């Protein structure tokens, strides 16, 4: 079994809804189950929390047995958590959910090796 989570701007058809570039404050998560090709939208309960949205989002994915995350960017705290939980991160920008999934299946997405922006966000 392999489950993939993609951050989504809203609910709806996967060829219309776009990937939310934010991880912790993403509006929805789309859970794609590779085994039965089922798709489920879940609302991100932590999208407007005042503290630790990223950590809460990691917990949500862990509880859903997610193995792969596709999103726009991941902050340092969320990255640490995803790494601890063994969830692989793939980055995409400006894409629909469907295109992002296809790109992932075709091995076209970059696997993230660190928090987006690097360890020194202020440096080029």
């Amino acid at each position, binding site marked *: 079994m392999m489950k993939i989570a993609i951050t989504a701007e809203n609910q709806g058809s996967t060829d219309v809804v776009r990937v939310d570039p934010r991880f912790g404050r993403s509006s929805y998560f789309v859970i794609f189950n590779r085994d039965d090709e089922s798709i489920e939208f879940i609302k991100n309960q*932590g999208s407007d*929390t005042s*503290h*630790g*949205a990223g*950590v*809460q989002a*990691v*917990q949500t994915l*862990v509880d859903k047995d997610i193995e792969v995350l596709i999103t726009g960017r991941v902050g340092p*705290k969320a990255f640490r*958590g995803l790494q*601890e*939980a*063994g969830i692989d991160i793939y980055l995409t920008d400006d894409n629909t959910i469907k295109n992002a999934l296809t790109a992932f299946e075709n091995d076209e997405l970059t696997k993230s090796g660190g928090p987006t922006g690097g360890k020194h966000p202020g440096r080029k």
Partner: protein
Amino acid sequence: MQITVMSGKGGTGKTTIATNMALSLQGVQFIDADVEEPNSAIFLRPELSEEEKIVWRNIPEIDHDKCNRCRECIDFCEYNALAVLGEKLYVYPELCGSCGGCKIICPEDAISDKKRQVGKINWGKINARDDCDSMEFWQGEMTIGEASAVPLIEELKKEINEERTVIIDAPPGASCSVIESAVNSDFILLVTEPTPFGLHDLKIAVELAEKLDIPYGVIINRSDPEGDEIIEDYCQDKHIKILLKIPFSRKIAVLYSRGKPFVKEMKEWREKFVDLMADIEGITA
């Protein structure tokens, strides 16, 4: 007498007012509570003692043999500082608010306290004038990356010497760290500037002073006869007293840029701060 110098907007002149006022009065204890960027020392140049006090707060430490990952602590934590990742309960110390609730709620008694450095406190003396006794100086400096300045300001305020005229330089804004700085003060000086930004943030600061139920008055910094109206109209409307205006002057700006308190070069201003203090005493009496 305890006076907190506050402003909604950053960069309006809290530190300028607080330091120049402190240098104009006798028997002052200066507390720099702007712990994220304590820079009143640039103007006051205290001789700091070599000792310093490290301030700690508690964060949870998990006994992984006892923890059965029941998640009661995770559900309780308002700061989202705990998560079960893989087979382990994981702590995010930088998110933790140090409320201690997880330790109380844990049914397995698997959580204990661990210390984490919030910041440090330094102190010293300032012998700025021959005709004055020396000023007591205290400042807090927060550890980079800490989420809340409150525990550090709380510790800093334990050093308050009530025998003295205490001047507290507060952080900007109107959040918890400002409240912690101002609470228990006898008076709040609200520093503002005659701009829409100054007015906007002054209104927020006034609301806070009202909620704290502490008497307050306004100082207009970078005052300009042609622009002060924006603040004056508001203050008149709300019956708020404007206690002092510091002019928008090149001389003051140049001194500031060199880290020099303007009362040192413009001695006539000492009298104005002495008068200001008398006004404050009149209001609080």
